[in-house]
């Protein structure tokens, strides 16, 4: 079986990683990674706007943003992908490539989830920071942009990285609407060698595992480093695990 796995990898590495085939310009892992990076890069600015809308008191901002977050949390991504896949051509009167469909859906979906991360990050920055910035003459948006967001972003980095990992995992759904990414490539290989389904999907799982584990691990390391750095400074509350232990015996 190990020999089968090695020979499948050797014969199809181009398709699995960067290869070309009739259905798309890119293949496999490269397409998956490009799709994930683009989605997070485009979703992040949107998520900041969403988070600010969720924190505002105006009902015109609060209601639509809350609705979007609840739809993303309550409806399966697959359902949303099918919405965009079937509805956008009906509305525009033109077909759009599967890659773009996937990108649009992922950006909206990830923005909703990231906005919760951003919102928590903004709330965690002390209230005094905003007051001080306003007292120094910054406008609300100026204070947000120059004072609050940089601090919040630093604390949010590990969460953003793990959101990136889940985006990579979500791009697999592109397979359902024939987006040429890694899962799609593996299915093409499977269709070609129908006698070895276990080996093909095992290889697929291994590739995803290696990529996602590396990033998950990086997020954990980053989180620990940020916690240690915050423990060394005097500003901001200490994480519970970082609080100094008292050595006195308990009564």
């Amino acid at each position: 079986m190990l020999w089968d796995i090695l020979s499948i990898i050797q014969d199809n590495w181009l398709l699995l990683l960067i290869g070309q085939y009739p259905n798309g310009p890119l293949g496999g892992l490269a397409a998956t990674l490009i799709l994930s990076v683009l989605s997070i890069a485009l979703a992040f600015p949107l998520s900041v706007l969403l988070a600010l809308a969720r924190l505002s008191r105006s009902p015109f901002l609060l209601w639509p943003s809350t609705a979007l977050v609840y739809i993303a949390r309550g409806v399966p991504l697959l359902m949303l992908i099918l919405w965009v896949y079937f509805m956008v051509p009906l509305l525009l009167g033109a077909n759009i490539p599967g890659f773009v469909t996937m990108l649009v859906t992922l950006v909206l979906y990830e923005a909703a989830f990231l906005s919760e991360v951003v919102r928590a990050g903004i709330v965690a920055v002390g209230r005094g920071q905003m007051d001080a910035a306003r007292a120094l003459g910054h406008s609300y948006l100026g204070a947000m942009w120059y004072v609050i967001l940089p601090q919040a972003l630093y604390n949010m980095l590990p969460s953003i990285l793990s959101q990136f990992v889940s985006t990579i995992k979500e791009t697999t759904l592109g397979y359902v609407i024939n987006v040429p990414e890694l899962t799609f490539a593996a299915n093409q290989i499977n269709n070609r060698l129908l006698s070895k389904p276990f080996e093909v999907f095992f290889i697929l799982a291994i590739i995803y595992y290696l990529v996602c584990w590396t990033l998950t691990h990086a997020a954990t390391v980053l989180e620990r480093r940020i916690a240690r750095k915050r423990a060394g400074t005097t500003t901001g509350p200490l994480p519970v695990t970082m609080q100094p232990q008292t050595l006195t015996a308990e009564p």
Partner: protein
Amino acid sequence: MGGFDLVAILTNPNFGLMLLHGLEMTFVIATGSWLLAMTLAILLLIIRLSPSRLADRAVAAYVSYHRNVPTLVQLMLWYFGISSLLPEGLQYWLSDHNAEATFAIVALGLCQAAYFSEDLRSGIRSVPAGQSEAARALGHSFFGTMRYVLMPQAFRNALPALINHSVSLFKNSSLAMAIGVAELTHAVKEIESQSFRTFEAYLIATIAYLICSLLIMSVGAALGRKAALSGGR
């Protein structure tokens, strides 16, 4: 196709039946895999709490695998891959007994067990060590301490995370469509291709999913309030 017409789909006996069957299948998959996941998660937690380093490593590897491999890939690995390794008699038996749904329940259940066990573990870790020492000092056995002192507090701490992951398990049941299970998403896709009423078909399914998810969330919130009251914290 005419204008917007929700009634045309809902009153068509064929489509109505397909929707009901789809919804039923979604519930069967979600409930089945939830039960499997919770049972397995408690088992994994017990293994992890045992003093053996090897068992701890094994559970950590299990969790790491299920967290870092996309759920769809796990479904495919089970349905296309592992099923082909089974003995032939079992394969025939399974294909007579809705193999797609069985593998969907197994794959989703195993995957979600990893998340549930991590939630429960962080729930247990957030209970102060003094609680278990006090319980042991009062004469409780290990299992008594677990049953009466640690577990109730751990469940309460883990409740928000468990509810979140239950909602995502419910949403993930839609992935079963990709291996051909006739659940809600599948039924809606069928209706769409038969009636060409894309907007109406997807609207019905989206609202159904949204209502169920919000229901799970609100039940979770109610449970959380109840737990907070009885706990006094």
